[in-house]
């Protein structure tokens, strides 16, 4: 099976039922997307497929259609995406394990809704669980990212 991740083509020989998450993590060594629940309850595995936020634990590799972007492809420590820059500025992370998914979900939201209200943020981001409780900082960082993207 072929797939394109962060602009690079890959070919893997696995069970077509294998979730994209485990192809990324164990076959391709791309570990930004995290395993948290395996059943779309936590959002830690969120990636983009053709720009749409998707829980990679729910996409069988045999059903994958479209290019995959993971947190590593969104921005890098040397060239941060606006959402990542806002996450750094607000020091959102505690353990940080959910944050790849939070950032990918937030980035997808801002593509579609550049000026989210508090209610929009709560509606979009509530599928991403944070056990450390960084929600107040996530809210603030989303707003900063929105403002910076608007100014860009």
């Amino acid at each position, binding site marked *: 099976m072929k797939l394109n991740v962060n602009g690079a083509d890959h070919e893997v020989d696995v069970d077509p039922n294998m979730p994209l998450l485990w192809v990324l*993590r164990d076959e391709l060594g791309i570990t930004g997307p995290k395993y948290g629940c395996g059943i779309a309850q936590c959002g830690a595995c969120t990636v983009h497929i053709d720009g749409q936020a998707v829980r990679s634990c729910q996409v069988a590799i045999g059903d994958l259609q479209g290019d995959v972007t993971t947190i590593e492809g969104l921005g890098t420590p040397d060239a941060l995406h606006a959402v990542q820059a806002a996450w750094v500025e607000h020091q959102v992370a505690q353990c940080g394990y959910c944050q790849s998914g939070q950032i990918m979900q937030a980035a997808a939201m801002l593509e579609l809704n550049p000026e989210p209200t508090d209610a929009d943020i709560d*509606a979009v981001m509530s599928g991403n669980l944070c056990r450390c409780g960084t929600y107040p900082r996530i809210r603030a960082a989303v707003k900063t990212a929105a403002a910076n993207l608007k100014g860009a």
Partner: protein
Amino acid sequence: MSRVGKIARRTFLVGSAAIAGGVAFGYYMYKRPAKNPLLDDLAAGEAALTPYVMINAEGITLITPRADSGQGVYSVQAAMIAEELDVDLDQVKVDPGPPSPAYYNTALAEEAAPFRPTNEGFTAESARGMMDVLMKFLGMQVTGGSTTVPDGYEKLRIAGAVARETLKAAAAAETGVPVSQLKTERGAVILPDGTARNYVDLAAKAAEIDPVEKVVLRDPSEWRLMGKPMMRHDILAKSTGTLTYGIDAKIDGMVHAAIKLNPRQGGAMISYDDSAALALPGVQKVIPIKGGVGVIASNTWYAIQGAEAVACDWGPAPFPPEQAQHWEALASSFTAEAQDSQQRNDGDVEAALEGAQVIEAEYRAPYLAHAPLEPISAIVQVTDERVDIWTGTQIPRFVQSNVAKMTGLDADNVHVHVMMMGGSFGHRLEDEVVKQATELAIAMKGTPVKLTYSREEDMIHDFARQIAMGRGRGAVKDGKVHAFDLGIAMPSVVVSQLGRQGLNMPGPDTQIVAGAWEQPFAIPNYRVTGYRAPQLAPISSWRSVGASSNGFLHDGFLDELIHAAGADPMVERIRLCWHEPSRKVLQAVKEMSGWDGFEMGENRGRGVAFTLSFGVPVAEVVEVTNTDRGIKIDKVYVAADVGKIVDPINFDNLVKGGVIWGLGHAINCEITYTDGIVDQTNFHVYEGLRMYQSPQIEVQGLENASKIRGIGEPPVPPAAPALANAIFAATGQRLREMPFNKFIDFV
């Protein structure tokens, strides 16, 4: 400065020794066999080294032995060293270091001493000193009990100062300039002419000379880093998906593994059939281990699929199989025989209740899972000569000795590489996953085996937070709380947890009454009694341990009495509180919230709660609205006093996180048993708070307390009672059992 003498008496001296290409301050202690630390302690001026600074050609590394499970303690520990060493955090690497008795945790033992944290009298301090000795014996390099900051506050700054002064001495020896004319700045010794000699270049010289042992710690007013907002060293990596957690680690040649354990935790496996599993793609091997099987595969998902496909015949649960039996066991434990402690017995409770209108209530707190978002994992490689372990753990020394026993190798040959953790909340104070990975690695000798728990295995085999039951009796008089009598029954967390490490804990378990018996209220007739229920399901420390349940039992019942007295919940708590720093946190939330009574108009209300835990007084006010769809938490105000705040940003984040943790579990989380098996298998029935339910939280940190304390746990205990008290204010419904969503809806 008076500190010098104190330091000398407490024998915080640092040695140094050359290691390959550089100098490690105190590092040579690793190489020495563990001596009797008690003798070290008795011989004033010797031993108990603080090996926290290493300098070599690659640069400066600060050793931060307390594990970082997300609470930011690598940065906080580094800041405490860097403050005195005169380096900036962007100049240094941070490394958790190897397991070593030198990294014992003094503050954790202090917390176990049966003295109120508000008691700083001679006997209490002496007992805490004895606990220090005990810890040295145990050599427990444990992260827990919100102790990282109090444990490191002096040790780490002294380590930084000793290293700095030794480097200055090295510069003086090289240049002939007297030490008194040297300054230090950003990782360099500055000569009078402004020339900078980098620490890295001075390392070789510093290795040759005796370390400077007498140092003077700077006054907080001179601090450059501590007390000011800091940028955590891991934020960039955590914002870019580039941080390697334990579950992300990869070792060349490793195989992946999953397990299937008896779902009745601790029960035996009678037989198994692996034929279906072995037929699955990617599955290489099925290996029986204690209580279940491990499946070796080429990919974690294959391994998990394989584990699910193994058919097993399980033995019974080694504890009562039904949840109701657990509650019955607690209910039957309020007896003289089961009494564990009664360290609070002021006035004459029985006389005060005699003839009074007695208010009675029973409170319950359920079992809970830790459920950090990163499931537990470990990579273990066993060869004839050595073992390597890569895992996120709070107990590296136990891991080392347990694996040494399992493999028959000396502990020196067991190398524990502590990995970053995606949360813990106490989960990683257990090391079952390492033992299981070691069993598999022994069977796969030479091959690194990475064992990853599925979320379901993690939830079912999480060592739960204790269940607790509180029975309160009380009376009011003249509009005041007159008598307060609380009995608390729970199994002993300490016995369960240390028992798995082969250790006994003699005497009463202070956790049974933690967060209750030591509350600083001058109620004239005031009694708190701990009852030790039989050991039931295996339990473990959960963020704030005993206080996580007892804060709710104690403050919830206190609120009932205050309302019965017709007093104002805030005013009466402040009136009753005799401990100055505690009273000030109450006064702070009173002002922050504009408290003018518990009523806030129709369908609205506010509640206040207070818990002193881990020496930290925390007061919280919760405001709620009773909407047509259920309770909405509008706003939370928190004030906490840790003596000194090392990093205000991290403090703010941890307080908010602690409140959200406390509220979320109080609203919708419990672990229950049916047929000996945990009913809750994943986050669909164990959510905690999500963003839409997360209130605005306003935080104030106070610095009136005399000792520095940690903030990881103390914000948790008052959150649940503050919410219950607010719901009572808004609805008149008194919630006495968690989770609250069994009794009332939440928006």
